[in-house]
């Protein structure tokens, strides 16, 4: 079946199977591989996208249910030369190692700051507790978001 989704401001149409996740459609059909797949069970947050204003695990969303929705992926957050403040802060603090979790943190973190521009340490930890990072131990990620919180980006 065809679904129409506005992805990063652009209307896209994909032919999807009934059982296909939004994650698969983004990665395989719409050529947006920045959103990562690490568990397909809603446990790791690597696949986080903004769906109609909410941060969701795209592996748990049926693509068919996204008909008519607006989706923002990491590819829509910023690009070289025009990085999103979250991307910039993560680079500055060394919060990127293998980088596999990074797209999820960029999207979930940007969403956090939109809803709460000055999160406390505990609010940062809680809001991002659905995103697993296996490399950094979260210290540098915390420092990146604490800086952003002070700046109130």
């Amino acid at each position: 079946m065809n679904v129409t989704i506005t992805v990063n401001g652009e209307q896209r149409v994909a032919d999807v199977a009934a059982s296909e996740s939004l994650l698969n459609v983004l990665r395989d059909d719409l050529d947006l591989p920045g959103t990562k797949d690490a568990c397909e069970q809603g446990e790791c947050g690597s696949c986080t996208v903004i769906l109609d204003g909410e941060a969701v695990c795209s592996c748990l969303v049926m693509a068919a249910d996204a008909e008519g929705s607006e989706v923002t992926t990491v590819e829509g957050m910023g690009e070289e030369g025009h990085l999103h403040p979250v991307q910039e802060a993560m680079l500055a603090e060394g919060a990127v190692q293998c980088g596999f979790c990074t797209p999820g943190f960029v999207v979930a973190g940007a969403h956090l700051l939109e809803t709460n521009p000055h999160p406390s340490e505990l609010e940062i930890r809680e809001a991002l507790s659905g995103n697993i990072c296996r490399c950094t131990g979260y210290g540098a990620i915390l420092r990146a978001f604490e800086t952003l919180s002070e700046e109130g980006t």
Partner: protein
Amino acid sequence: MTTPTRTHVTGGIGTSVRRPDGVPKVTGNFAYASDLHSKDMLWGATLRSPHAHARLISLDTGPALAMTGVRAVLTQDDVPGLPLFGQEEQDQPVLCDGVARYWGEPVAIVAADDEETAQRAAASIIAEWEPLAPLDDPEKAADDGSLFRELKIRRGDKEAAGTVVVEGVYETASQDQAPLGTEAGFAIPDGSGGLDLYVTSQWVHVDHRQIIACLDMEPDQIRCHPAGIGGAFGAREDISLHIHVAMLSLATGRPVKMEYDRSESFVGHVKRHPSKMWYRHEADADGNLVKVTARLLLDGGAYAHTSRAVLANAAFFTVGPYRCDNVVVDAQVVKTNNPPCGAMRGFGAVQACFGYESQMDRLAEELGVDPLDLRRQNAMRGGDPLATSGQVIDAPLPTVEVIDALEAIPLPEPLASDDPRLLPGGTGLTTPASKVVRGVGYAVGLKNVAFSEGFDDYAEARVVLTRAGVEVHTAAMEVGQGLVTVCQQIARTVLGIENVAVVWDDTSHIGSAGSTSASRQTQMTGGAVHAASVGLRDRILADFGGDELRNDGVYRAGERIATIDEICAEGPVEHLVRFRHPETHPPDENGQGDVHAGFVVAAHRAVVDVDPELGLVRVVRVDTAQDVGKALNPQAITGQLEGGIMQGVGLAVMEELVVDHGVIRNPTFTDYLIPTFLDAPAVETRIIEAPDPWGPFGAKGIGESPTISSTPAVVAAIRAATGKALTRAPVRPQDIVGI
């Protein structure tokens, strides 16, 4: 492949310059192996054994072959060359050879037009099995003589005895590396019967050696390319789907992609060896260690992989960073029908450290002395013989300094808040803060750097000056740790030229860099880049009679005498180096000799809050001091220390691969728990610089130490809070409440 590393960055060694691959990683543009694809590609899938031990009576691939869209179904009969692979010992069949020896062993592989068809086809293959009793008890395997390796260490006087004796039996569970990116590979036929292979790896050359043997091909027919990788921690050190994806591509003449989902990843790579350790420490009345006697038993699972080397590490670090003249160790790694084990960060040293540090605390208690004082008193320093092998390495070992630096970090305030996010168990907990007990624990750990026991360990790097800047060519895998940044920093510092790109070459264009493991790449590939840069610089200076190389040319007495274009007038100039560390040797029959190339020491202090009623633990802080030799990139070091601690905390309180009769019961992120942001303790780090004699600029490999002593520190803290013996990691709620 040249991954995007040409972003302009500045900075030499000692500065926290940014990663050159950072921008593509934050924008989602970095190409991981799992992102590779082509229009005409096929998908591969694997049929696996449902039994931990069973005879394969018959295999009917007919139903899969009959499915529309299926292009190939291959079994062990289709392996063109050597039917076995393995890094140290070739003992694992590429596909089931008639007997499955572990749960999830690959039996047959399928290539089909799309992923779903490939998976359905693999599932449709009819395998008839005769289940056999699995050998799943490591102690029984040891009794039966089912061994990959046995190592005996005998040093000093076997009659020696101390007056104060503590004995203990300790266990550690199997841990999964759980890198966030799962195994993925992409094979592309080259049109002349060969292949280009892009697979998640820690060492493309050792993959290549095994792959060409199994495919019966010439070395230059298969090119293994370093591919983008989402973490490793040891999981990529051994072959997973490499040979399978290559076989499917050769059989179909089409590009083939394979990618494991999380559950398949859990069975598709080797684990940390579970261990059982019997320890006896004897000291004199003043607290000097007199003798350590230990038996170590590691479960290697069904196939050898790197078990032999893991056992050596466990055995040689049985005593840790302490002086002791009389040592008896009997170490065995057994072959069972449990999941195969191999490399994971810390590589044998993790298990031993849990044993010896638990013992040091018990000894301090028995002697009635401060546990840190006991450690300082017995600390091994540079120039002291390693207690087990007797080897003396002429290099500083700041054991006392790391303990002192750690102790000087202030302890946190007592728990004052009833905010459930700060309590053990988090928001689900009902216990008030007043019922929560705090504990503090310490541990110190020792690790070797690079390969040991006489292995011919080298790394090759080529440094090239072009008109556009410097290129560092290597096949060393960047797995997230930041080697790419360090290579740039080293080349930049030596050459005085800022514009440095790292180019990853495939196996046909450069020699091996060795494995990205054993804390070795900063010293080995870093050492190769350093030596190649020095060689290149000195040659250019000699050719032009200059005394300094800068961004814009060769200088003599402050005057430019040649531009970069002039240096490269006849094309790029380059220098290739194969770098080796000081020679090591196999141990003699008593486990004695110069087995290692270098040591690194670290110490950890954990602070925990425990709810003794429910057995829940919150790790409040883990602070650390570590010897890094020379800090090439302080920010990257902090990242390694913090990330490594988190994996140590995982093994201390939550990470355990539950294996029952050889079957993994928790192969998902829902059931195998990994520390989240809310579980993550605060970390304070202290970097100690005791220069290494052969590391570039004195740098030491640092990647594993953070994971080694953090686990026993956390368990010691829980013991302090609860008064329980807690001889097993991870500590489970039932161990604390005593059910």
